[in-house]
């Protein structure tokens, strides 16, 4: 369905966007028409009539959020999520663009699959679904994909996410080849031989619980390797879901050296620790695993000083029956799209680690640039700009309940957590896709 964009008036909000210099924001009423912002006026000023009037009293309006890292499971695992259900969860979470990871069945290593994923996203019409591409065919780590061919159908971010590219020679060649193609390679950093059978972070907690450990060094070795390969080849690189203090240090030093590296962190890695596995509930199994309070502090510091560019959810739905298996068989991953904003406001802004606009930057305009979507996503809220917007009620507190998610799966690790800040309305390509917290399609 691609109904015509309607006209929308949003009254009562304050604008906080990429041009803001404080968190107070600029009070303004907005009008949206034909997919763009047509008016931005003093509050209460007259505006032409609109099909939809959205109340935003006490709210913030900002550019729609951009998630660099979601698993939508379609094609192949529609039991756990579809592009439509995942898009709905994204829209409810305030996202107007999501980058779909390539580990579907079949994976994103051919034109036909990436075009299918993009088209399913268009049909759902709830947010922009941006397919990533694999780095290697079948994500098998042996042969490079046809980067230029996939770039020509719009793929800008390539990754074998779910696993890292193990072979250093292959990774070097990928970086060299990709360098002049105006694409970004992104790495899931995990040296596989160090994590065979691993279920959780290797440390005191796994020693007590008798579960096979995933050592921090398995991530850090690959971060370090790839930083050196970037130095060698002059290419850039994006690091997915960094989880350890040492990884943050390595990226900070690489940026200080002028290397073109960027990084993301997932909300669960800066809010939960390995102690969460104490009750043996596989909902807390995730890859890379939940780590220690010291890692959480380092990730928050990395987000605050900009070493980590983006908050990305690694939204990873799994049907209940899959998460009811023994811990070694249960697949890793947790839901993230609908809780990311609330977690960031509660755990980063309310704790004083970051300003509101810095958090919104990490959720919107900075990832938009990494994914090369910044011609239409993460734009300033101003007349003439594409109408990809989110209206957030920063004062609303809410309790996470798994049966209220729009996802097909229920594997949120935050059941019963109370969060501050909730998405009220989401406007995607000039259409109100979420109104008062409810998806309109």
């Amino acid at each position: 369905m691609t109904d015509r964009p309607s006209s929308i008036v949003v009254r009562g909000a304050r604008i906080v966007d990429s041009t803001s210099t404080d968190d107070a924001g600029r009070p303004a009423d907005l009008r949206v028409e034909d997919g763009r912002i047509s008016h931005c006026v003093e509050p209460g000023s007259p505006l032409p009539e609109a099909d939809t009037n959205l109340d935003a009293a006490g709210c913030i309006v900002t550019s729609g959020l951009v998630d660099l890292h979601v698993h939508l499971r379609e094609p192949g695992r529609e039991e756990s999520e579809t592009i439509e259900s995942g898009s709905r969860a994204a829209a409810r979470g305030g996202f107007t663009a999501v980058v779909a990871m390539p580990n579907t069945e079949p994976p994103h290593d051919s034109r036909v699959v990436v075009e299918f994923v993009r088209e399913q996203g268009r049909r759902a019409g709830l947010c922009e679904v941006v397919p990533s591409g694999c780095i290697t065919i079948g994500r098998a780590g042996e042969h490079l994909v046809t980067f230029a061919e996939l770039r020509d159908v719009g793929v800008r971010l390539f990754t074998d996410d779910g696993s890292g590219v193990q072979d250093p020679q292959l990774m070097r060649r990928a970086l060299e080849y990709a360098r002049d193609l105006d694409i970004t390679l992104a790495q899931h950093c995990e040296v596989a031989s160090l994590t065979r059978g691993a279920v959780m972070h290797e440390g005191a907690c796994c020693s007590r619980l008798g579960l096979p450990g995933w050592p921090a060094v398995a991530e850090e070795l690959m971060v370090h390797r790839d930083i050196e390969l970037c130095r060698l080849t002059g290419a850039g690189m994006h690091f997915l879901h960094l989880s350890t203090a040492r990884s943050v240090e390595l990226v900070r030093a690489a940026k200080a050296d002028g290397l073109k590296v960027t990084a993301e962190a997932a909300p669960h890695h800066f809010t939960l620790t390995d102690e969460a596995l104490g009750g043996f509930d596989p909902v807390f199994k995730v890859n890379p695993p939940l780590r220690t309070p010291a890692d959480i502090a380092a990730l928050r510091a990395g987000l605050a000083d900009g070493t980590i560019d983006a908050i990305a959810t690694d939204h990873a739905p799994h049907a209940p029956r899959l998460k009811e298996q023994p811990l070694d068989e249960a697949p890793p991953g947790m839901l993230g799209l609908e809780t990311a904003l609330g977690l960031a406001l509660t755990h980063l802004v309310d704790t004083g680690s970051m300003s509101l606009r810095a958090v919104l930057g990490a959720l919107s305009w900075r990832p938009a640039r990494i994914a090369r979507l910044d011609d239409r996503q993460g734009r300033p809220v101003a007349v003439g700009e594409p109408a990809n917007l989110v209206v957030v009620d920063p004062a609303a507190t809410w309790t996470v309940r798994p049966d209220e998610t729009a996802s097909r799966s229920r594997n949120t690790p935050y059941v019963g957590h109370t969060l501050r800040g909730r998405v009220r309305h989401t406007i995607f390509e000039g259409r109100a896709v979420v109104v008062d917290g409810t998806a309109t399609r």
Partner: protein
Amino acid sequence: MKHLRSIGELGVDGIVHVLRIARHMDSVNARPVPKVPALVGRTVVSLFFEDSTRTRISFETAARRLSADAVNFSVSTSSLNKGESLRDTIETVSAMGVSAFVVRHRTSGVPWQLSEWTDASIVNAGDGWHQHPTQALLDCYTILDRRGLEASPTCLAGLRIAIVGDSRHSRVARSCAEAFTGLGAEVVLVGPRTLLPPDASAWSVGVSESLDDVLPEVDVVYMLRMQRERMNEALVPHLGEYSSRFGLDERRWARTRPDTLLMHPGPMNRGVEMLMDPSTTSRSAILYQVRNGISVRMAVLFDLLGAPGEAVPS
């Protein structure tokens, strides 16, 4: 107490309570007809996802001596091989009216997952590398018995116990270290760094890489079974080297104190960790461990399933 899943959940007072009931069960087992009607009408199902004939038989014998109905759910011939989930299995068998499941699984944590899906009691008979609480209880009981001590919250105070071998992958070591230290003993894990837990500080124990240094200083030498597969994972370079550093032979045994006890949870790997014949020393407690296992498991089942306020049989 609803379940027995770990020593930590049982707590020190719980350990002492079970050990005291086990003393009474010992007197039941000493009778010409070692059987009492305490659990008539209760059904105890052994649910062993991983084979362990000796542990299963020990539990089933304990259940029968208390007059419970002991049923074996044989996983190898069951629907689990046809893709039935853990949850469907436990819900289906529970619907037949089960008082307790005795569970063994290769993965840590399964008893906790199962207890979400059944009203029956769960007795952990070994989960992954994590816990095997009745083994630890019968080992505490055996040490008290051999030493002539009475159960109390500090009954092992002053004793030093060496746990020798692959503690990293051992549910026995995890449970025993917790129970022994809980009752006041000092525990030292002996083995190469590759076979110790990644962070031993989580265990409140000492560690040593020298069996020879430790042997003359301990009251109990607790040998763990060394699995041959460990060599394939590069955890030890060679089994022969392991034996020469951490195997117990006559020469090493001769360097222990005159009252030091020798223990092993079985099955022994002769020629690997056990290089002597334990039957040649009067200080071997190994067969007492097996014998006491019945009394301790009777105590656990009685405590979980006995009618409230019912007198302990003796």
